[in-house]
């Protein structure tokens, strides 16, 4: 007993000798990652009261019907009805916005975020779902070899949405028989190609695009799609499927 007390005494002296200040030691840590689930209605909470006006404003805007889709448009490879719709709209709008004679348009596959644009009314919100990213529509000046690089990338991927004005086939993940405006690639020509700035700046494994001259339309792709659908509606038309084949897989 005496020995125990003396040890405690010595330890105490040592402790005081070392430092008079107490120390907070991190002894251990415990963790659980909690799932945030809506188990009940929280309609009365201050947070809900704060969010509600924003949500209402957003939904009012999103629920605005801007057009009518005549048939389901689906996302897919190598060609798809949704891919044709989006890329053809990018082509016509890029030409209109820039005044440049754009040869064709492309859209990276991963940039389309819904698998189906259903038949029926098309709301603004649906196009936000289709294209949530704030990517800008740009037009890139490309030489024949640049076009080949791009088509090879698309071929390697198994097909991206590409517009009218360009066709090629895919064989062994390479692009062949590339035709622009119905003609084989001309080594002396500069092609004008519309695409998201994301791809034009080298994104989605397109480093060969970096440094090519660009013309910026200044418009988000989503905005361009909304404007395109509004124009179709203003002309008294519906969204119609253009089934032309752009990519052939061998």
């Amino acid at each position, binding site marked *: 007993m005496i020995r125990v007390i003396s040890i405690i005494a010595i330890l105490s002296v040592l402790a005081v000798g070392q430092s008079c200040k107490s120390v*907070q030691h991190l002894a251990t840590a415990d963790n659980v*990652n909690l799932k945030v689930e809506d188990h009940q209605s929280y309609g009365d909470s201050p947070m809900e009261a704060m969010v509600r006006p924003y949500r209402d404003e957003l939904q009012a805007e999103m629920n605005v019907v801007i057009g009518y889709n005549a048939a389901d448009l689906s996302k897919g490879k190598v060609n798809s009805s949704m891919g044709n719709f989006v890329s053809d709209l990018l082509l016509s709008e890029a030409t209109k916005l820039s005044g440049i004679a754009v040869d064709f348009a492309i859209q990276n596959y991963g940039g389309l975020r819904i698998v189906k644009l259903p038949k029926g009314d098309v709301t603004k919100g649906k196009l936000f779902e289709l294209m949530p990213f704030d990517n800008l529509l740009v037009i890139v000046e490309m030489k024949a070899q640049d076009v080949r690089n791009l088509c090879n990338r698309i071929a390697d991927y198994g097909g991206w949405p590409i517009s009218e004005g360009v066709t090629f086939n895919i064989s062994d993940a390479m692009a062949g028989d590339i035709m622009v405006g119905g003609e084989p690639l001309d080594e002396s020509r500069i092609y004008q190609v519309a695409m998201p700035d994301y791809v034009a700046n080298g994104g989605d494994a397109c480093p060969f695009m970096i440094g090519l001259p660009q013309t910026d339309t200044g418009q988000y792709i989503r905005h361009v799609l909304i404007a395109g659908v509004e124009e179709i509606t203003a002309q008294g038309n519906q969204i119609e499927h253009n089934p032309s084949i752009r990519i052939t897989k061998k």
Partner: protein
Amino acid sequence: MQSRRNFMKAMGKGGLLLGVNQFPFHLFDRGEVTKITLLHTNDVHSRVDPFPMDGGRNQGLGGVVSRAKLIEQIRSEEEHVLLMDSGDIFQGTPYFNFFGGEIEMKCMSEMSYDVATMGNHDFDAGIDGFVKQMKHANFPFVMSNYRVDDTALSEHLQDYLIKEVGGIRVGFFGLGIKLDGLVPESLCKGVIYQDPIVQAQRVANTLKHDEKCDVVICLSHLGYRYDEDWVSDVVLARETENIDLILGGHTHTFLKAMQTKKNKKGEAVFVNQAGFGGILLGRVDLYFENNKKAKCQSCKNLLVK
């Protein structure tokens, strides 16, 4: 401060990292134990409402109303709670496209976030777009490896933050990912990315030694781990010292449980990440032993695999 009984009760709530038998409870008999509860999110990406009921695997999960309720409940149960975010607050739902990040900042302020760091998507409205929303944020942003001297961010990012809760000095700092290739230059003009390891060590040393913090917490947007030879939270943990905890983001990593890594000196570093979209709220409870010894005997018992 808690009695030993309360301490054990508190420890019993979640799965212990240490088996109860291994834990040196006797060491706590003469010291006082303080528990600090850290709550954290990352990559919430403008997910103000829960995921839509569209048959997707996350349907009905997340949302600021549910998260606020959960945080409120934990605050009512625990004495010392801190709340933080590891970046990518912006972008992902039309709330961001329409309101430019205003509602995200207002929600975080309403939940009383203590501190956050910036992710690459927080540049999506440009530097000015981010700065514009700062008036809606009542909490500070920490960032140690972006030099922003010549930008409008300089007034809004600080090197570190110290919070004193329950007698514990908690030091926070933030790390951002390389912006080149992720963020268009026009949106982050003038921001200079610096080596996160070097800057983390600098600020961690300051917090531990000069500022006498009892615990140093890194809010990181570097990403949890990569197959490539890129800096990540796992690399950061291994190659530094004086960091106790890394709360990460960017890779949208769902960890079943917080990981324990060895730092440069073989000491434990805890690393956690809470998925994305506000689906998870990460919770880490830290227990501090208060004594007059320079060394902490019980800390040696921290498990390092």
